[in-house]
């Protein structure tokens, strides 16, 4: 990587540090929901996708099965695949580099890359790699800190951690609610999931809402 444009560098670094810091919330929440520190750190290293990670710990923490947790996390992970489709023709990498690129293909690296479009393809590639590696580094460090912190806490409810998880989901969904259709879908899915909770096994009410999203997407 030769010269990096200063705006690209600044965008990448600020996103990496702020997003990486949420890793603390994930680490703490995962331990609070029954995952070990090792499992928590492996999720951040290997899954490396915030929404999917929060989903799997949320479903298992609520008493859902491993399969429900994996299914919910994977449905949320589909969008990373879509980002890969968008980024591949711009990154033009093969072999091991493509494996590395795939692992750091997430919301933030793709968003920063697309944000550099006016500065040309080279700036896009730099934005992608810098943000991807930056978030990876900080996300994993802060996950470990959060996991160790939560382990030392004891009763997680006394520290408000049982509310930090839904608040984190809310923070993730909020910026996505751009149109009225989005908001109606969000409220509808909340009501549906709650209505189904006493009837269906834990985890299924959440997965089922993906089909509502597909139905809404196909209609219009």
């Amino acid at each position: 990587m030769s010269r990096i444009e200063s705006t690209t560098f600044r965008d990448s670094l600020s996103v990496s540090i702020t997003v990486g810091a949420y890793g603390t919330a994930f680490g703490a929440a995962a331990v609070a929901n029954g995952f070990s520190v090792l499992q928590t750190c492996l999720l951040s290293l290997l899954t490396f996708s915030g929404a999917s990670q929060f989903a799997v710990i949320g479903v298992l923490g609520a008493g859902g099965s491993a399969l429900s947790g994996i299914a919910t996390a994977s449905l949320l992970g589909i969008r990373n695949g879509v980002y890969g489709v968008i980024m591949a023709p711009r990154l033009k990498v093969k072999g091991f580099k493509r494996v590395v690129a795939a692992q750091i293909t997430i919301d933030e690296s793709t968003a920063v890359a697309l944000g550099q479009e006016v500065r040309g393809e080279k700036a896009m590639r730099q934005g992608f790699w810098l943000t991807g590696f930056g978030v990876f580094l900080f996300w994993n460090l802060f996950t470990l800190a959060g996991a160790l912190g939560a382990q030392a806490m004891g009763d997680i409810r006394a520290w408000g951690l049982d509310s930090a998880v839904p608040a984190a989901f809310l923070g993730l969904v909020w910026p996505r609610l751009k149109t009225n259709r989005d908001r109606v879908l969000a409220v509808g899915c909340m009501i549906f999931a709650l209505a189904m909770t006493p009837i269906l096994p834990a985890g299924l009410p959440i997965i089922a809402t993906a089909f509502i999203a597909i139905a809404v997407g196909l209609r219009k």
Partner: protein
Amino acid sequence: MNSFWIATIGTSVIAFTLKYAGHNVPERIFAHPKVQSINALIPIALLSALVAVQTFTEKTQLMIDHRLAGVSAAVIALILKAPFPVVVLSAAFTSAAIYNWF
């Protein structure tokens, strides 16, 4: 191997497979507007359902407790355009205050 290990490994394997598959698929497959629309809507549906379930349920029962206060604080923080860490911390602080003092 307990369910937490199965979930950790299973989620990680599928997460990477989805990312890697994306890098090996031609871009035109994703061109259909309905596919793009569904791709934007699925996270909204799942994340909203997770907010509701994590706030109002305990195992398979519905309940209202200190978590509602915490999540309400998060809503206020989001309306005030607070950054993500502030949203999470305001929820944790409010929830802990209610849990400890009532």
